[in-house]
């Protein structure tokens, strides 16, 4: 039966009925696909792309934000550094100034103290000299009187011998500062010369 059918058909000559059925079937698929299926797929693709791009955009925004924060922080750090350097320089200069002021003040003070000490020393020396002068005179006259055996006080007082001697002695001491002359003189004179040094 099938062999019989084969003889009556040419497979390359299609019957119109099949062409129309094929047209309708494909038309149906195309209609449903174009109207319903493809838009939904496109919608899904778009949603997916947006989800991905949205994620990327968010990440980019965050990155930019982080970068801005970092820049700001760096700027602040640099600012703080220059400020610190300025403060340090200023402090150093101020310290220098204070040091110099203090040094000047101390020098002044020490000079003052030295001056006062010298003054005091001079005054006390003068005092000692005056006291010694009186005492040495009395002692020497007393000693000489005892040696001689009579009182020389009055004549010594009258003639001013002691004073003249002492002045002479003083003059000699001034002439030779190493105090060689004091050797033959009174002990008081030697003490005086040492004190003068």
């Amino acid at each position, binding site marked *: 039966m099938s062999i019989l059918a084969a003889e009556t*058909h040419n497979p390359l000559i299609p019957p*119109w009925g*099949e062409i129309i059925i094929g047209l309708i079937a494909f038309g149906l698929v195309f209609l449903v696909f174009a109207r319903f299926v493809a838009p939904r797929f496109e919608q899904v693709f778009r949603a997916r792309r947006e989800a991905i791009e949205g994620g990327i955009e968010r990440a980019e925004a965050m990155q930019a934000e982080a970068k801005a924060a970092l820049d700001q922080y760096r700027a602040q750090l640099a600012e703080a550094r220059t400020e610190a350097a300025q403060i340090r320089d200023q402090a150093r200069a101020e310290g220098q100034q204070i040091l110099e002021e203090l040094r000047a003040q101390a020098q002044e003070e020490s000079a003052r103290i030295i001056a006062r000490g010298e003054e005091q020393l001079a005054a006390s020396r003068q005092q000692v000299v005056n006291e010694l002068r009186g005492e040495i005179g009395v002692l020497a006259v007393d000693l000489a009187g005892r040696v001689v055996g009579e009182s020389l006080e009055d004549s010594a007082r009258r003639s001013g011998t002691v004073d003249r001697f002492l002045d002479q002695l003083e003059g000699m001491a001034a002439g030779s500062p190493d105090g060689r002359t004091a050797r033959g003189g009174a002990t008081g004179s030697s003490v005086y010369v040492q004190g003068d040094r």
Partner: protein
Amino acid sequence: MTSSALALGSVFAAEGGGDGFQAPGLGEFYPEPIATFSLFGIPFEITRITIILWIATLAILAFLIAAVRKPQIVPGKLQFVGESGYSLVRDGIARDVVGPKGLPFAPFLASLFFFILANNVMAIIPFAQISPMSKFAFPLVLALICWVIYIWIGIREQGAGSYFKDILFLPGVPKPMYILVTPIEILQNFIVRPFTLAVRLFANMFAGHMLLVVFSLGAVYLFSRFGENFSWVFGPVSVLMAIVMTFFELLVIFLQAYVFTVLMGTYLNGSIEAEH
């Protein structure tokens, strides 16, 4: 009762008659009509092949609608399969082959791909086991639709004058050569293209079906004559070949659906972008 089963009947009939193996013929593709009617003077036959066509059409529609019923950003299994198919055509053909203006053609190309694929798959679905695409009418319909569309798009995109002028007189060809080139180009663009498009798909499915049927019926025949003339060797070989050819057919099914769509993509590309 399938047409192959009818052929099987004739195998046994031949056996009974001692006539040897009757190879299945063209009758495979002309099964007995279940019903016939006439509409506007055009005869319609409802055969098992047209029923298979409708089953394939409705199955692919059901699959696609199910795939996009609840579209989600993270796709489910069904949506993923549907999306993969659509992406293959949309990105691989509409965008990459047709060109930058190709995306609007994605639904058309994808419906071509899915329609052909669904019909081709019927070639190896048990009990159907014949692709409607092995009936020349169906590939021809698709090829004619493609033919109309790529010419129409060519006119729309380039203007009728420019489009036909570019086809008739290829730019950059020496003038005397037009005697040779112009007839070839006319033949190529308006006759050969749709014809080859249709015949390629039809012949592949036709030959595939014939191979499967010959090996299957051959196996049945050889086992019925077990022990005679080395049939105990060739019977198993025939079964094995039927199985191998089924897998080969699976490859052809996908390949032909894809090739048809890709070729339509290149034709559309030629129509959209000024040729050469």
